[in-house]
Each structure stands twice: as structure tokens, then as C-alpha cells.
């Protein structure tokens, strides 16, 4: 596990409070948030509906500004207006509905939108469009009409549109919620590829628990506060009851080991960490049964 101390901090929340209205007595959507994400990390944010996940995400690219406290993106203060466009360039934001992010009629024209906005010269735009479309696997469809893409492909195009800015950070707010099973799979694979190959820092907001396991760090929000920030396996090991407080469920392997442990087995942390793979899990259980553990 990479240590924050040795790694450059890309996202830093310092005592952040946020509420949508400045009226007296209006409730805070986020309270006293202190957390950080290091360069190259994949942070997964989970929590019940209304826990503040989306609000927190929108503080990352200046769509929202903290009511109190500070958010720093690669050292830049988001509340400083002078930093606005530099931050927007650094933080690529992908939203839930693939349909409502695509501006262009043709795939490559849409991917070019961000570079055009940045006033880049034509040959640079061309390079970035090819780079972004290749990264998401749509290079072969660059001349297709966007209307003919499937949901999963549209979302990949949305990601390409953002990669064309060459951002340092990629934020995805429930990117697979409106996709079918195949679309979800392809997006998660793509996110991991982007994190590993392009070395981009990723913040993924999701309510699919299987996706929660792929990150370096899990952040759980409840009613606007951070209840947990650390390795995903530690969170899920805390048991069904603890997790259900946040209206979440354990991933399958964790629930199974949990129940077996409740009935006398003694699986340990390293077993939990391998529980995502059904073959390994079966192996572990079989050995436990045979050895009477």
C-alpha cells in the first residue's frame, strides 16, 4: 500500500463544510471533511443516497466551492477564482448519464470539444483526439455518428472527451448506473486500465459493491461526514451489521466468510483479501473444511 507521506497529494480536503444555501439554519450537505488522495491512487467513494458523495465530487472541479474549509487540487485552492480553469483542465469529470455529456454528432468531433475549448492548435487537437479515442478503444469508430453508439460506448466517449484534456485526475460520478451489465464491466475495466497505464489519479463514486474492491482506498460517507477512509478490505471485514448502517451490502465473498466465521470457522484477513475471486475462495473454504479449521 503506498504511503501518503511519500506520495504527492493530488486531492486535499481540509476541514471542508458545504451547504447549498447560505440561509441561517440551513443544513450542511458536508461536514468537517478531512481527507486526501495521492497521485496515481484509485479512491472509491461509497455511501447511501443523500450521503454527500456527488456533492463532494463537485467540489473537486470547482462546480461547487466549499462554504468553509479548503479543497486543494494539486496544490491549487479551488476557492480562488484565478485557479478555476487550471483546475478544470486538471480534473476530468464524467457524469452518470452518458447521453447528456456528448456534444458532437460524430465521435471524433465530440472528443475534440475539450481541446478546441482550450484553444490548442489543430495538429495538437488531432494528436489528443487520437490518443483519447485509442485509450478508450473507440479509435476504430472515430467517424461513427454518436447517436449510433451503445450506452457503454457513449460513456467511453465521455471518458475520451475528458482524457483529451490530459487531466491529472479523473472523477467519475456513478458512471455505470445507467448501463447494462456488459457496459458496466467494460467501464470498470477501462477505469483500471486508465489508472494503471496512464497513471491518472481516479475518484470513483459508485453503489456497486464489487467495484468498491478495486480501489486503493475506500471512503464511506454518511450524512455528509466521512465515516471510513482506508483499505476496502478493512471496511468490509467490519461485518454485515456495521455496513448496513450505511445502507450498503458486503461483496459476496466477504459476506460468505463473515457468516462462516460466525459459525465457528476462523478465516483471517488475508483470506478476506482474496475473497473476490471465486476459485481462490472455493479453495480457501475447501482447505478450511478439510483441515477442520
Amino acid at each position, binding site marked *: 500500500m503506498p504511503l501518503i507521506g511519500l506520495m504527492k497529494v493530488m486531492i486535499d480536503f481540509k476541514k471542508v463544510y458545504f451547504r447549498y444555501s447560505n440561509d441561517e439554519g440551513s443544513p450542511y450537505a458536508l461536514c468537517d471533511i478531512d481527507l486526501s488522495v495521492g497521485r496515481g491512487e484509485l479512491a472509491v467513494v461509497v455511501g*447511501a*443516497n443523500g450521503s454527500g458523495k456527488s456533492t463532494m465530487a463537485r467540489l473537486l472541479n470547482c462546480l461547487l466551492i466549499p462554504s468553509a474549509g479548503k479543497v486543494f487540487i494539486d496544490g491549487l485552492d479551488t476557492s480562488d477564482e484565478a485557479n478555476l480553469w487550471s483546475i478544470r483542465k486538471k480534473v476530468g469529470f464524467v457524469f452518470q448519464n452518458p447521453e447528456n455529456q456528448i456534444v458532437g454528432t460524430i465521435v471524433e468531433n465530440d472528443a475534440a470539444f475539450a481541446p478546441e475549448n482550450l484553444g490548442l492548435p489543430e495538429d495538437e487537437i488531432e494528436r489528443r483526439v487520437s490518443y483519447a479515442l485509442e485509450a478508450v478503444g473507440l479509435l476504430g469508430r472515430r467517424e461513427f455518428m454518436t447517436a449510433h453508439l*451503445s450506452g457503454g460506448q457513449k460513456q467511453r466517449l465521455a471518458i475520451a472527451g475528458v482524457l483529451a484534456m490530459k487531466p491529472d485526475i479523473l472523477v467519475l460520478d456513478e458512471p455505470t*448506473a*445507467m448501463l*447494462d*451489465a*456488459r457496459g458496466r464491466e467494460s467501464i470498470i475495466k477501462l477505469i483500471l486500465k486508465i489508472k494503471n497505464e496512464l497513471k491518472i489519479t481516479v475518484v470513483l463514486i459508485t*453503489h456497486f*459493491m464489487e467495484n468498491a474492491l478495486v480501489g486503493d482506498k475506500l471512503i464511506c460517507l454518511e450524512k455528509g461526514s466521512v465515516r471510513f477512509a482506508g483499505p476496502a478490505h478493512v471496511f468490509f471485514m467490519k461485518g454485515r451489521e456495521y455496513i448496513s448502517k450505511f*445502507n*450498503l*451490502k458486503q461483496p*459476496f*465473498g466477504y*459476506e*460468505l466468510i463473515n*457468516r*462462516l466465521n460466525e*459459525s*465457528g*470457522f476462523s478465516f483471517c484477513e488475508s483470506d478476506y483479501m482474496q475473497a473476490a475471486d*471465486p*476459485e481462490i*475462495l*472455493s479453495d480457501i*473454504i*475447501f482447505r478450511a*473444511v478439510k483441515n*477442520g479449521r
Partner: protein
Amino acid sequence: MGAEKTLISLKNISFTYNKGLPTECAALFNVDIDINSGEIISIIGHTGSGKSTLVQLLNSQLTPCSGEITWFIDGIYDQRGAAVRRRVCASVGIVFQYPEDQIFEETVYDDIAFGPRQLGKTPEETEKLVFKISELMGLDKEILYKPPFELSGGTLRKVAIAGVLAMEPCVLVLDEPMAGLDPESCDSFARLLQGLRSSLDLSIVMVSHNLEYAAALSDKIYCMASGRIVLSGTPKEVFGDIKKLDEYQIGALPSAIIAAELSAAGLKFAQTPLTAEELAAEILKNYGK
């Protein structure tokens, strides 16, 4: 629940979009399905497997190119004729994906009342229906007089479904009803469906690719791939057939996969476990500590 009675029967149904035109596209081949009273049936399959086409055939918005659909409801035996089609539409209520998109009236009450009013119900009958259905759906009386745009997505979805139930269908067909819902809402929705089945004596057809809920709720499951039914049976039968599920790339329940692996290694399982709880119980039953 009473004796099982077939409400809708599909025999050897095939359907092709744009038949005869250059954009012709075959969607269903030789599909056989029986929907019986009081059952919850799941139709699972990926996008493009023909599920959505099937949904529209069930309430006669589409007519099959070959084969026969028979509705054993209210003496409707035939799928021809617009008047008959409208009666079928009322008896087979369809809730499309993201149904909250169809809400248009100024108050929740009026939107739920749209269906009954179209059917020619009197204001008193309509009021009774709206109140009855809203209560079953867990919608408070105050919500009924609010404008829809003030409500959350989950509540809106309930309103949309109430609008379909207010037509008193015998069969409720839901196309991806849990699309876009978070886990907590999915759970409460599942409980709601079970409640509706018993209080309204409703048959429910869920067209979805959510394997977990299909296993938890259904009496019977049909698996579709490339326009055909490739596997059908009770949840335990369907999810126990790992080989076939894999062959058609339908996906599988993690509990069933692990049970299969452990079986192969020598442990004994009485039946296919569908949840972690059942799997743990099976493991413990044989070798409990």
C-alpha cells in the same frame, strides 16, 4: 393464491422488425412462455437478447410475425383489432425502463388517475383506485397533491408504477425496474413487488438482467440469448446449470459458482444455494463445527 391458471400463453413466437425492408432485423425466434396467475416470472438476458421486444408483445403493442399469443383474460382471445388491443393494454400493465419519464400531470393524483380516466372510470371509482394503489405503493396521502417535480427519483418511480397499477391489470410487466436504483432502494422495491403480488393477486413479469433479484423473487426464470429462450426453470434449476449459463454468457450467481467448485472437489450439496446465507448453511450442514 388459488389454483394456477395460465393468463398469457406465447407459442412459437417469432418477430422481425421492419420485415421486408433493407433494415430488417430478426429479434425473436420460436419463443414459448406461459404466464400463470400469481406467479413472479423473471426474463433475464443481455441487451439485444430480445427482452424488450417480448415486453411489447405481451401487451399487444407489437404483433408477432408468426406463432400465437393468447390472453386468457376477460374473455380476450384474440390479438387483432385496436379495441381489443386497448383492452389487452389495460389488462397487461407495462412499466417501461425509467418510468418516471412518463409523468406529466400537475399533481401526483392526476398522473396516477390518467390510466383509469382513459378507461372511462367515474371520478368516484377513480378516487378509490388512486387511494388504494397509493397506499399499497407506500405513497403518503400528502404526496398525492404535490407536483411531481418536487419528489425524489425513487418516489417518482413508485408514482409511475402506481399509474399503471391503477388500471387494475392482471399481469404487471416491468422492464428493468431496478435500473439506476441504489442497493437500498432495490431491496425495498423487491419487498414491494412481493407485497403487490399477494395483495393484488397479481402476476408479475420482471424483465431484467439483475440475477440476484431474479433468484430471490421469481417462481420461474426464462433465460434469453440472441432472441431465443436458452434455459428455463425454477431459480435453483436455472442457476444450478452453470455450464449452460456459461455457454450463453448469461452470467452466474457467485454462490452457485462456489457451490459447483466445492462440489467438484468432493463436498456434498443438497441443492443449489442462491445466496451467501444458503451457501454458508449448506457448507455448515455437511461439515458443521
